[in-house]
């Protein structure tokens, strides 16, 4: 359940920012989770709801920005879309594709009042 640790990491960043801004409560948390990252958005949302109970973000809605995967193929040199983690290059079939987008796990922004 490393989603639990990640959810607590998110809460920590959210609380820090909320306090700095003197917020009363957090309405919305927007997370950027790449399709190739090692996290399941649904599991992260479940854990986030659990760890935020009673906190400044207790009623916050969680939104995800989906980041599609892409990478550069080391064999054919093309920039290609990656559907699966460490999937083959759709152009030449090589598995030597270096992911450039889709591995993100970031807190993008929060809405506070």
């Amino acid at each position, binding site marked *: 359940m490393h989603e639990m640790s990640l959810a607590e990491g998110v809460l920590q960043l959210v609380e820090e920012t909320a306090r700095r801004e003197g917020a009363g409560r957090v309405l919305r948390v927007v997370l950027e989770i790449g399709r190739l990252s*090692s996290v399941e958005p649904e599991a992260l949302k479940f854990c986030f709801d659990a760890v935020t109970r009673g906190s400044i973000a207790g009623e916050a809605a969680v939104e995800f920005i989906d980041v599609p995967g892409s990478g550069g193929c080391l064999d054919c040199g093309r920039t290609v879309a990656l559907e699966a983690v460490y999937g083959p290059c759709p152009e030449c079939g090589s598995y030597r594709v270096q992911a450039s987008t889709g591995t993100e796990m970031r807190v993008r922004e929060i809405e506070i009042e």
Partner: protein
Amino acid sequence: MCTVCGCGGDGARVAEEGHAHTHVHADGTVHSHAHGHGDEHAHAHDAAVADAHEHSHRHTDGVVHSHPHVHQGEHVHPQDHHHEHGIGGDLDFGAGPARAHVPGMSQARMVQIEQDILSKNDAYAAANRKRFDEHGIFALNLVSSPGSGKTTLLVRTIELLKGEFPVCVVEGDQQTSNDAERIRATGVPAIQINTGKGCHLDGHMVGHAVERLNPADDSLFLVENVGNLVCPAAFALGEHHKVAILSVTEGEDKPLKYPDMFRAADVMLLNKCDLLPHLDFDADLAEANARRVNPDLTIFRVSATRGEGMSAWLDWIRSGLEAQRSRRSETVAALKDRIAELERQLGNR
């Protein structure tokens, strides 16, 4: 209430191991908790006299207070953090109601903007790595499923190498200190970290273990992570390499099923190879699957119990350690040159 250790709300909790204290916040609320430090601090200890000492620190709300602090070794922490120290023994990060540990979690939260969810962990890992590099220490993070033979492999590796250079070990498991005891039986120092319900070690836990073990210069530092092929992939500990262990009693397609871990690793040990004649396991297929996920993977076929194939693995460790040593001596030599140059410039004035 502190979400990590659960203290606070019911009076001061001064645990036998670890420390807690009561304090007043700027808004007037009084509560107690195991403390986190907002400021960086370093302090030395005289272990010969006592392991306890007192120090003061400032919270983010400006309250300064001092309290006794019990632990061994010397440490510098990069950021605010929550910690529970004991004297000797093992580290249990699963003692709170969450039964899990979060690096950097503390009551005294710092006002700081970081966007990457793992940024706190990465900062702890970077601090560990810096310490390893400054002291010529070669650090490995061993990861695998439960039952792949990690501990047996470690014991065998230590027995074969301990006469050549100092070795120390961090053992991660949810519960029990069985593995650390197996390592200590070889005569090298080992610390057990219990993660409770946590599924992986993190940079902060390992930072505390490093303080406690205080590894020697030019030594080998081995971490046996929690047996889990998923979660430890995401959490850097400061190691130079992740070493994934796959045993031939598992499936050849495991690298495809759990690609993150085999991608994160630089080395794969195919263990229990002495059993190959009795199994349908296709070792070439397993290697091909691993290289499909990670084309740059270095692979060794070994049998930790019989000793076959161990020499190539041991040579790989020796060369890694040698590289760390020469890196450190180059740094020291460069610093000496710089000092000599500055002294010469001063002499010319």
